[in-house]
């Protein structure tokens, strides 16, 4: 009898833990918040402010997703993940979506069984070095000691770059951006390499940012974007279309300030009407309320507003839009039509 009970309990537990990987949208709605994986701390992208609240470029996208689902950008919990722990956290169901400067690659998409849902930042790997080293190009880095974040694509790009250019180097693998910063500033490594946006963000926190340069070479393509587990398309669609909605909002000139007035029958543009739920039943198709995009846009504004506020040229990080400019303005940011 007892044996039977144990068996039944075991089977139930096994079945339950499998079930957890099923419909994330239902799970999320049931628990009332989204669990979002972000960086452990990268200025501009994901950091905690003086009150302990998460903020930053990636964080706002997470919050916009929560706003779309629950109408409340605070219906969210953040899990700081390192380059190493992020995929396990996502695969195990500890987090529902990963917004952590994660590069879209074939093996991650296919072999690690994740779905990448778009790109919120087009990046590339760069090198940062002290100005007084007199190095002007990455091709002069033969023999340098290089700090890298372990478990990232940068680790592999670095190996490829030095091998292709027939140069030697001394890799110093580290876990987090904060550790890398400490090692680099203590001169324990000559060069710090990561995505160029990360370098700019890190440099902005230095006491003497002017004494460090980011070398002109960008040695890789790093399309950074959100990802979810394979096989959960309804949930993936929501994350994807929140990102797209924010990009379309910039295209159409919808901002956090004017979104309420745009969401009225007076608006002429039918795509804006569809996006903001005035026309059609697109929210219902996604399993959300009709005004989901209004909530998402209200969170931190459209893509351009989020960019300018957290990492744009007027911030300490000072990144230019570059590739991340809209396709209509010379960049490659392009969302599929909303219809």
């Amino acid at each position: 009898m007892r044996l039977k009970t144990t068996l039944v309990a075991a089977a139930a537990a096994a079945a339950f833990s499998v079930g957890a990987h099923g419909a994330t949208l239902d799970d999320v709605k049931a628990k009332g918040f989204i669990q979002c994986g972000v960086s452990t701390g990268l200025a501009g992208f994901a950091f905690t402010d003086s009150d302990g609240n998460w903020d930053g470029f990636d964080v706002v996208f997470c919050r916009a997703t929560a706003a779309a689902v629950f109408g409340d950008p605070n219906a969210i919990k953040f899990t700081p993940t390192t380059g190493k722990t992020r995929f396990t956290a996502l695969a195990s169901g500890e987090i529902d979506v990963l917004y952590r400067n994660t590069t879209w690659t074939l093996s991650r998409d296919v072999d690690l069984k994740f779905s990448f849902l778009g790109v919120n930042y087009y990046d590339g790997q760069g090198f940062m070095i002290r100005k007084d080293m007199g190095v002007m190009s990455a091709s002069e880095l033969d023999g340098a000691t290089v700090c890298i974040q372990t478990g990232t694509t940068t680790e592999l790009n670095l190996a490829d770059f030095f091998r292709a250019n027939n140069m030697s180097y001394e890799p110093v693998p580290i876990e987090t951006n904060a550790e890398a910063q400490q090692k680099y500033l203590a001169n324990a490594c000559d060069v710090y390499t990561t995505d160029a946006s990360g370098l700019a963000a890190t440099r902005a926190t230095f006491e003497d940012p002017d004494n460090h340069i980011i070398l002109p070479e960008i040695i890789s393509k790093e399309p950074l974007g959100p990802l979810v587990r394979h096989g959960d398309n309804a949930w993936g669609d929501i994350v994807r279309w929140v990102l797209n909605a924010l990009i379309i909002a910039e295209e159409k000139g919808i901002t956090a300030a004017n979104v309420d007035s745009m969401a009225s029958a007076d608006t002429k543009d039918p795509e804006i009407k569809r996006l903001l739920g005035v026309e059609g039943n697109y929210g219902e198709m996604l399993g959300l309320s009709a005004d989901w995009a209004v909530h998402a846009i209200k969170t931190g504004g459209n893509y351009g507003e989020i960019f300018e506020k957290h990492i744009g040229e007027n911030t300490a990080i000072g990144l230019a839009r570059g590739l991340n400019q809209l396709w209509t303005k010379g960049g490659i940011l392009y969302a599929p039509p909303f219809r």
Partner: protein
Amino acid sequence: MSTTGQPHAEPFRVSQLLYDTRYRSYTIQIFALAVIMLAFAWAIDNAVRNLEALGKDIDFGFIFETSAYDINQHLLEYDSTSTHGRAALVGIINTILVAIMGCITATAIGVLAGILRLSRNWIVARLMTVYIETVRNIPVLIWILFTVAIVNEVLPGVRSFRGEDALTGLFFDSVFITNRGFYIPAPVFEAGSAAVVAVLLLSIAAAWYFGRWARARQAATGRILPVFRVRLAILVAPVLVAFFALGSPISLEIPALRGFNFKGGIYMRDSLIGLWLALSVYTGAFIAEIVRAGILAISKGQTEAAYALGLRPGRTMSLVVLPQALRVIVPPLISQFLNLTKNSSLAIAVGYMDATGTLGGITLNQTGREMECILLLMAFYLAASLTISAAMNAYNRSVRLKER
């Protein structure tokens, strides 16, 4: 179980399984076994189902695929075109290296601190108490981070050895202590060096044989020979003669500052030094307590008897007390060596590429084969621990009290 001798053998009743002490232990054991097996079955079943739900299988094929990443400290030939298997091997060798270095220094520190803690000199004894109590009550990870941070922040950078008022290395500008680690000269073996090494090995054998002969002679006749001086002569003289006769075939390669870093010589990385020191100092504190316990376990009468025979305190310790104390010391020492080896897996915190860093770190992350990598890693640590246990148990048998 024989019941034939009893006049009225009672028939077996089911209730005996619970109430009869002869059978109860079997009942409990079978029940416990069933529970454990069920737990295992559930764990395996759960893993298989979940992997299936994720669309993953168990496949060790990645071991033969190209790793595509570099490892800074590799004692084997390795580059980013090598396989994941070789990367794991490089990591395993790095683990073994730091474990062996750590065990040796931890034992040295532990024995010294353990003996000194019993010193009659109040200051020395108290200092050792402070060392032991401070070190072993702070987690080892903190010590590792602390030592590496000290190396990184306090020692001079490589660039300080360049330019106008540059620092110079120790020992005639040959050893460089920097915040990236220590650069020390490496021996370079040229043609003819094999002969010198052979002479050295022969000298060691001769010195050992002479020591044995001298002891036998002392036991037989009571006459003491100047063993140390003769041994030194046997060790040094033939090697020096051979070395110069063959035209100095062994030279030293001294590290020189070229480009970003020192080149040449042996490079001990900051991560290795920090990890090694932290593990040694930490485990040394535990070993010190074991040594102290071992010494205190030897009856005071032994020491008094040795003093009565006229032995000085140092010789009493090394000839009378320690050999007996070893019997008490060795078994708990084994577990300290095991601890040190397993604690070395914290290396990743400071970027030392041990087995956890390569196989359980980068390889796991780049291939996404969590289950396989962790299983292999567990198998390695298990094998390493069992090997250490076996070796130390063999040693324990050799120092055990021999009853004659």
